[in-house]
């Protein structure tokens, strides 16, 4: 376990699926950060969740799924990228 750790995603048969590109909005101390899957470092820290979502939305529009986490790490929302 360490930096650049890319987690596997399981389907119901426990087979490993191809990882899609995602960007996460994650609580950090008294602020929020944006972190892409497979990267060791998050972006700069934002004071509010809204600011972090705003930055993450830029990544979302360029082809990433957007995953917004709650304070406790669970999932608040997941917006899949659709190439319309």
């Amino acid at each position: 376990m360490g930096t650049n750790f890319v987690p596997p995603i399981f389907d119901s048969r426990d087979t490993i699926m191809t990882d899609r590109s995602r960007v996460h909005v994650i609580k950090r101390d008294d602020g929020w950060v944006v972190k892409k899957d497979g990267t060791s470092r998050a972006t700069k820290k934002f004071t509010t969740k809204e600011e972090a979502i705003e930055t993450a939305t830029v990544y979302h529009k360029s082809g990433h799924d957007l995953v917004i986490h709650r304070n406790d790490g669970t999932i608040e929302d997941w917006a899949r990228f659709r190439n319309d």
Partner: protein
Amino acid sequence: MINNFQTNVFINCPFDDKYRSLLKPLLFTIRYCGLNPRIASERMDSSEVRLDKIIEIIKECQLSIHDLSRIKSSQADEYYRLNMPLEIGLDMGCKYFHGDAKYADKKLLILEGERFSIHKALSDLSGTDVKCHDQEAEKMVECVRTWFAEIGMIDVAGPNLIWDDYNIFNFALYEDCLKRGFKKSQIDKLSMPEFFAFLQNWMEAAE
């Protein structure tokens, strides 16, 4: 994952819905750091006597984490909770009085939700290792990994990395549950055996 005395961690904590947001990062951090969390609800067998199961787990674990943050009653006429103080007493009794010398090496972490609250309720524990998670999941990760480092696991990952991976793990669990026919509202209430099975699979795939 090797399951033995040195790597087993007994968890003494509440198992109600309100505590789930702290129990899940606690389980994750222990497993992430290469250890094996053991809790009384790890299997659902109604024929087992709960206290017998707890004593069996205590005897199988060198490390233990006792979260005493919820022993205080929160409203009028609510009983205070004595299971956790009872179980820390059993664990300390095993450490200090068991005839087998290996139990003298048991190491205990005590968690509280409000700084210095333990010493108001259990002043006999003054001088023991107490950490405060402030009822926050992120702080829980930091408390537990810091304690592992303090007792000699100097190569454990940093708190931010574990916390970020816990968030990413939650997404993997969320996506898997949606595929298996759970509603969003049911995912956070996933049974502990199901949660733990997914955690084991996820970690084994990463190791």
